């Protein structure tokens, strides 16, 4: 029966080609526009590390004096001070944890063979690689001893390795970052993330850094932050040591808490830490407050999905509704004009359900066709986005979910549009039409 309905649907399509093509186009354009904005939204909002996003947490401490505000909904600063980060990193809590910030260097080999180039670098503890699941091609993280002694070691990306060592195993070789020679401890594979969720401060969709060095080098090398540095208090900061001792907020911190109990305990630890600090004269406020958000919550808190994009998704869905209303009207026209024919079929013994089913199959065919063409239109739209805005080049693509979503939404839309006309036509009373023929 199903094949027969498809055949009937195809005949019907051919009988009124103009109106049928119009309907398919309406669905296609609706799906095309909706999928374009939805794909970008989907890529932006997507969980970047689904199996672990509920374990990785970013603590926040409210270091601000009472009465001071921050531009977050709960007045907690996004970043942390150097003293707090040091204390949290050194605390005897049995969890993977790492401070983190972005800096940068001129990379060269101290020889005229390689022209110096600039790379940004991430300054972290060795747990970082385990926590964020970076894959090593050669070597591995620096050792605990190297981390403690602030040894000049570096982990480079395969891209830098390609540039400096033609992709050979470079573990143990020396490279220059500014004026210091660093030993290569490992080479990581291409880190394929499109949301830089571990540091959302300066463009959530920028590429990850290509160099990684131990956090213990911060004080030794007086590493400047290539990110946000927010002071909130009047402090004279003339030297780097002043900055390290100050209340300036410029560092991120991540901790891996595998279970709800661990999270609970870590929260208690943070509270105890703040009380201890308060006793030492910091955290000058009535209510001590902290935040402990996991990756998904952190992305939401940092408003990773841009405003413009939310507006666009909303508008495109409204647009889809207009398309559905349109198709509804056209289907009504098409089906009702066919009422005499349906009358004959009903008289010959087709049940209401069969007539209804037949029309729904026909509508679904239109929807599916529209959905497929819609994918093409969405690809065109995404290409337009990529060429207009290079920053979105990794985001303006469709993944498998979106490829499946397009025909699903199209089918759903056409189904909604077809429901009423199909119901109307299946209620046709055979008698009237038999009489007039």
């Amino acid at each position, binding site marked *: 029966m199903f094949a027969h309905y498809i055949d009937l649907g195809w005949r019907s399509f051919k009988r009124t080609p103009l109106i049928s093509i119009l309907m398919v186009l*309406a669905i296609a*354009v609706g799906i095309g526009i909706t999928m374009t904005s939805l794909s970008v939204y989907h890529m932006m909002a997507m969980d970047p590390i689904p199996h672990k996003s509920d374990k990785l947490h970013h603590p926040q401490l409210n270091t601000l004096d009472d009465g001071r505000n921050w531009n977050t909904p709960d007045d907690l600063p996004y970043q942390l001070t150097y003293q707090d980060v040091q204390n949290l990193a050194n605390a005897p809590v049995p969890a993977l944890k790492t401070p983190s910030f972005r800096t940068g260097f001129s990379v060269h080999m101290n020889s005229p063979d390689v022209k110096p180039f600039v790379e940004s670098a991430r300054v972290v503890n060795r747990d970082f690689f385990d926590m964020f699941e970076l894959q090593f091609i050669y070597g591995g993280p620096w050792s605990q001893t190297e981390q403690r002694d602030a040894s000049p070691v570096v982990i480079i990306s395969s891209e830098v390795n390609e540039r400096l060592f033609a992709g050979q195993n470079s573990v143990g070789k020396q490279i220059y970052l*500014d004026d210091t020679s660093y030993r290569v401890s490992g080479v990581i594979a291409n880190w394929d993330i499109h949301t830089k969720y571990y540091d959302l401060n300066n463009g959530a969709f920028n590429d990850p850094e290509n160099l990684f060095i131990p956090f213990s080098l911060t004080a030794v090398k007086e590493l400047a932050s290539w990110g946000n540095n927010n002071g909130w208090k*009047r402090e*004279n900061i003339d030297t780097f040591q002043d900055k390290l001792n100050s209340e300036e907020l410029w560092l991120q911190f991540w901790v891996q808490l595998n279970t709800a109990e661990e999270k609970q305990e870590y929260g208690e630890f943070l509270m105890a830490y703040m009380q201890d600090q308060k006793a030492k004269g910091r955290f000058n406020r009535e209510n001590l407050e902290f935040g402990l958000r996991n990756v998904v919550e952190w992305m939401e808190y940092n408003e990773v999905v841009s405003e413009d994009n939310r507006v666009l998704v909303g508008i495109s869905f409204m647009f889809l509704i*207009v398309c559905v209303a349109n198709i509804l009207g056209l289907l009504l*026209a098409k089906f009702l004009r066919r009422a005499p024919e349906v009358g004959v079929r009903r008289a010959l013994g087709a049940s209401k359900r069969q007539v209804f089913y037949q029309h729904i199959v026909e509508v679904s065919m239109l929807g599916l066709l529209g959905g497929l063409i819609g994918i093409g239109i969405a690809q065109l739209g995404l290409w337009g986005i990529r060429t207009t805005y290079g*920053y979105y080049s990794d985001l303006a693509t469709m993944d498998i979910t979106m490829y499946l979503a397009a025909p699903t939404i199209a089918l759903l839309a056409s189904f909604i549009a077809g429901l009423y006309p199909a119901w109307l036509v299946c209620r046709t009373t055979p008698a009237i039409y038999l009489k007039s023929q």
Partner: protein
Amino acid sequence: MFEIKPIFNALCRSKVGAILLLLQIAITTAVVSNASFIIYDHVQYLNKETGFPQDELFRFTVLTFGKDRELSQQFELDEAMLRNIPGVINAVTTNAVPLSGSGSSSSFRLKPSPEESESVNAAYYFADEHALETFGVKLIEGRNFLPEDVRITNTIENAPNVAIVSKAFAEAMFPDEPALGKNFYYFGDKPLKIIGIVDTMLSPWPRSSRPPENTILVPMINPGMYQHIMVRTQAGERAAIMRQMEDVMLDAYNKRVIINIEALDQVKQDYDASDVLMMRMLIVIILVLVSVTALGIFGLTQFNISKRTKQIGTRRALGARKSDIIRYFLVENAMVCLGGLFIGSISAVLLGTQLMQWYSIPALDNSYVAVTALAVFAMTMLAVVVPAKRAANISPSIATRTV
């Protein structure tokens, strides 16, 4: 005269078609008026005067890794060398590049702390006496920095005590009196005396909610390992000069890397890319939406007419003129359309308030709703005329033939 009552009764008998039309018109009005307002808001921003001759300026960044030279001396030498290149008007080192999206801002106070006082947020540019000519901003009051105003320092103790401010900042800080010669305060109690006022000079983030017109120039140089340089050239020579910039700078000293050599109009374009994208997408949506609605109305009218062939024939046979038939459809459409526009305008205003509440979009101007409603009305009427004319041509004999 318009037979409104019978037409309305007829409409009530085929509700679905009318409701669909009404819905489409309502959504179209709501979306198009809001989208066109957002587009207008974006266009207005994109055309805003920045104060900089963007086609004459370019910027680049120097990362010095060599430790064997004193940076402030090196940059003095570099600037002098750049100014000697034919076609270059002037060059200056600065802490932030205008219109680039990255820079620094601070709150400046009317009175020294700890006194209670109003404060005004402004972006600041650290640069020497060459900044005015390099930036190409217009001095409208007071004077430029003198070489002795400029401090080469990184400590607060030696910080400068004069500043050139933008007109907008001067008016925000001193709303009721002339600002020239007055002091305002930074770092709590360090005074800055206003010695010059410039016309428009936008901050590095022209799209920000912090007023981008509020900017100040402070005569301080603190060259770092990561240093921006701005160069102003004759417009026609810029491309050629930019091409040789890396070699020229590395020839002067090679323990450094030159990056981000970029024309200022390109810098602005990159900064605006997301706005342009949003605008393009909205324009596409409006165009497609309007044409889909027009087609839908066309189709529905067509359907209505084909359903009523006999009725039209009968009316014609009973003496109705062609113009009566056309008028019938126009009036019918106008009634549905007005209903849709009514609902659409209300939802447009509601949508506008919602958008304003959630997003940083200014309040929807009601004239946009009115103009959109008029345009949608005209469009639907046009979409009806053709099918209505065809309907009028239905011969009365059809009515008698098939009953």
